[in-house]
């Protein structure tokens, strides 16, 4: 087992009037190479959860195990762990600080002790992955970039650590539709070709339905549903009750199905949906 969360509870500012129970008794596990979706409405504890997975937050109670080792036992090298399980925060453009894009992207690997040729290679890889031209951008100041470019530099700064697992906290928030689609496609490739474990936090069902192999659904700090997207979307009422919905396509397929047609409901792309609807109509006629 790659990552195991056991009875995790997290309380912010305990013992004050501002106390928040952000997570309550959450247990889950994640296998190496999985593509995990974490969904839940605003304030449901998603960001709190993912910050536990690489030791940025310490559990109030409960345990995190990485490859069979307790994360908060004294032998864990947290800094090394954080380069293996990388976390890209919500609005990462605010973390840039160096004089040049190169130096900023190199910050992570340099902290791991990477120098010289290898460092340059990693920065190049990171920038190429986010489709920023190395020659044009590497010597520019990160503060002179547009918001979208800054965000890409931040992503490059994470990828240059060559992580085994990557946690993305609402990476597509405030992206335009084209960049979003593009970004999702690249993440998918990173997962399939790079064999990187991906943990994708979002409250956008459409994003996650196409990509994730398994979903964890959170509401008010509790893990309320888990399973494959198709299974999860069967519980439309539960999802709506906790402020989420199901993808438009799934809703459509489920409605057709309820009309008595034989049609698959585990379809998440427009192309597949078209094909399935046409197939089902033909069958109905024939």
């Amino acid at each position, binding site marked *: 087992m790659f990552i195991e969360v056991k009875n995790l509870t997290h309380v912010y500012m305990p013992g004050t009037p501002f106390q928040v129970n952000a997570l309550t008794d959450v247990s889950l596990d994640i296998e190496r190479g999985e593509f995990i979706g974490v969904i839940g409405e605003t304030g449901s504890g998603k960001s709190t959860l993912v910050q536990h997975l690489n030791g940025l937050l310490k559990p109030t109670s409960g345990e995190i195990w990485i490859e069979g080792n307790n994360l908060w036992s004294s032998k864990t090298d947290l800094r090394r762990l954080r380069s293996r399980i*990388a976390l890209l*925060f919500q609005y*990462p453009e605010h*973390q840039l600080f160096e004089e040049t894009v190169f130096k900023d992207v190199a*910050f992570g690997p340099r*902290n791991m002790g990477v120098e010289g040729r290898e460092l340059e290679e990693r920065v190049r890889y990171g920038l190429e992955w986010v489709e920023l031209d190395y020659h044009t951008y590497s010597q520019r100041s990160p503060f002179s970039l547009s918001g979208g470019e800054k965000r890409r530099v931040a992503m490059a*700064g*994470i990828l240059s650590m060559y992580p085994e697992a990557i946690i993305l906290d609402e990476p597509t928030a405030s992206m335009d539709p084209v960049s979003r689609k593009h970004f999702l496609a690249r993440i998918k490739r990173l997962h399939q070709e790079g064999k990187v474990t991906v943990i994708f936090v979002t409250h956008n069902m459409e994003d996650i339905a196409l990509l994730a192999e398994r979903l964890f659904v959170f509401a008010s700090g509790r893990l309320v549903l888990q399973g494959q997207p198709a299974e999860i979307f069967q519980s439309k009422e539960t999802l709506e009750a906790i402020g989420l919905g199901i993808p438009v396509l799934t809703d459509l397929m489920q409605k057709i199905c309820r009309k008595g047609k034989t049609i698959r409901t585990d379809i998440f792309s427009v192309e597949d949906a078209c094909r399935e609807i046409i197939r089902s109509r033909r069958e109905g006629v024939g």
Partner: protein
Amino acid sequence: MRSLTLGHYLPGNSLLHRMDPRVKLVSLLVLIIALFVIETFLGFMLFGSFIFMIFLSTRLPWRYFFRGLRPVFLIVLITLILHFLFTKGGQVYVRWGPLTVEEAGIYLGSFMTLRLVLLVTTTVMITLTTSPIAFADGIEYLLRPFRRMGVPGHEIAMMMTIALRFIPTLMEEGDKIRKAQMARGADFETGNIFRRARNLVPLLVPLFVSAFRRADELAVAMEARCYRGGQGRTRLRELQARPLDYYGLTTVTAILVFIILTGV
């Protein structure tokens, strides 16, 4: 974030919470004067029990009270030690090589310590029960008579309000940036002092950038709403003194007068 208790507001609904901020500020001033007028331990005891009763009525947790005292603990301790060792006079109690602890030292040391502790306690109690916004409003009002002398009361209050408003925001932001850099392997915890200072760069640069950005946005937003200082400006919540406030003010004034007249 948790260490900022001196001046940290705790919402509540006690008498003290509901009092007018102007009255609270003036009362605080009167009480501080009273503290410096007191000349006997009996006076401190009376004063202390008054503060203690008010504190009970606010139903604030004791923890906060002690936490508020923590920053001044060292000062109090040093005062005590200095007086014990260096104020001479009266009977000698302890002799230890060249050092002696004498009667006057113990007397003055305890006296000063009591005064300091009560001073901080009273102030902490007022700040814990007054929202920063109310505080700024109160100060603006109280500074009004000095406007003719060129004291920009409104501007001072506005600056205070804005600063107070952004302290938690900046702390939150600092916390987020710290975590984001730690996720990239930054190390804020080890190394000698120079190394640590240098390691703060990844934290401070984004924090300053964001503070300036926020300041800029705020300035634009204020200008867009035609803000141009205090002149002719009305307010959403008018400060209004109620009977409770007059009772409070009368009580503290009575205490001051009592102390002066009886000389306790």
